[in-house]
């Protein structure tokens, strides 16, 4: 019995050392893979953009409102995929008010890709809304976007609605394709405040990061 105790202790010590080396190896592998992957991924970590560097709010004084709907607001399972080239804004089409009986999930909004949004934004034809948390917006955002979090208190939504006429063209984005906040916010603006010119940028901030890789992937 006495002879087995030191052996067990030695074995445990060797085992602990072996596990420790394995742990170091796992960490080293994670560091190497992580850094290499980050350099190659278009959605790799990039430096945040403080508000002072790129933010220009040019919509507060003169809300964009031409009365021309971006496209019709739809209910049902088929959403509109609209890729509007620069300056070629679609001809006015009669809009369909959102069906109050439709659930948020049933509401469908036109969808724009970043190149189209970029052109419209540059032409001051839309108001771009960042539906992510205000704190996230403060860290990094699409230049020219304004912040209105999808889960903002009603008072904030009302204050927002007081600033913009009901026919203002809005394009709303959040994180990426997997994010629902832009759709949530669009549904609120349509149903609670009667906005009709609403469109989404489903690719969200991720699409912008990929398309505008300035400073991207810098560790």
């Amino acid at each position, binding site marked *: 019995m006495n002879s087995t105790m030191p052996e067990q202790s030695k074995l445990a010590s060797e085992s602990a050392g072996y596990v420790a080396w394995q742990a170091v190896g796992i960490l080293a592998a*994670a560091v190497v893979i992580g850094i290499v992957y980050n350099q190659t991924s278009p959605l790799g970590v990039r*430096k945040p953009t403080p508000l002072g560097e790129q933010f220009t709010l040019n919509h507060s004084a003169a809300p964009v409102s031409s009365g021309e709907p971006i496209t019709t607001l739809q209910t049902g399972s088929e959403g509109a995929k609209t890729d509007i080239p620069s300056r070629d804004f679609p001809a006015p089409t009669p809009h369909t008010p959102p069906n109050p009986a439709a659930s948020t999930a049933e509401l469908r909004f036109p969808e724009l890709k970043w190149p189209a949004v970029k052109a419209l934004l540059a032409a001051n034809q839309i108001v771009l809304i960042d539906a992510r948390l205000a704190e996230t917006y403060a860290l990094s955002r699409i230049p020219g976007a304004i912040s209105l979090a999808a889960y903002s208190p009603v008072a904030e939504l009302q204050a927002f609605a007081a600033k913009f006429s009901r026919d203002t063209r809005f394009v709303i984005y959040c994180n990426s394709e997997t994010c629902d906040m832009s759709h949530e916010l669009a549904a609120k603006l349509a149903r609670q405040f009667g906005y009709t010119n609403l469109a989404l940028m489903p690719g969200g901030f991720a699409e912008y990061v990929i398309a505008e890789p300035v400073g991207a992937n810098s560790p």
Partner: protein
Amino acid sequence: MKIALEMSPKQVLRWVLAILLVWAALSKIANLNEFYLNIALYRLPLPDTWLRLAAMVMPWLELLCGVLMIAGTAWRAALFWAMILFGSFVLATGQAWARGLNINCGCFNLDFLGAGFASFFETVKFAFFRALLLFAAAVYLWRSAAESTGPRSGPA
């Protein structure tokens, strides 16, 4: 099916932790920049360089740990890191909750649950208790594993 039935409760627990790690890792790896922005919101007293490095490395550490724990290779070392990861999640979410930060945990991609459920399960309060549970499970497995002494002993 037979294999599953032959698994001990500890093995099942290890698999559950491993699958959660893989799930969390994949949702982060898909968009590292989003993960970085999420952890930046925790306002941890760490230099930004550290946060960016953590955002690059942590998802891969989670993935490696999860895969190794499932495979049963170097699983105790993987479990060690899982314990460290869950412990750090407890600290991060706990301090965010204590400071009243209104942020998303950024731990899992739960959008398939719908925005309402996802926002609830991603609150720091819920995430804190979830992390605490996972940390406790990892510590339990670690202590159990410490009882076996062989350097290449099989999974618990």
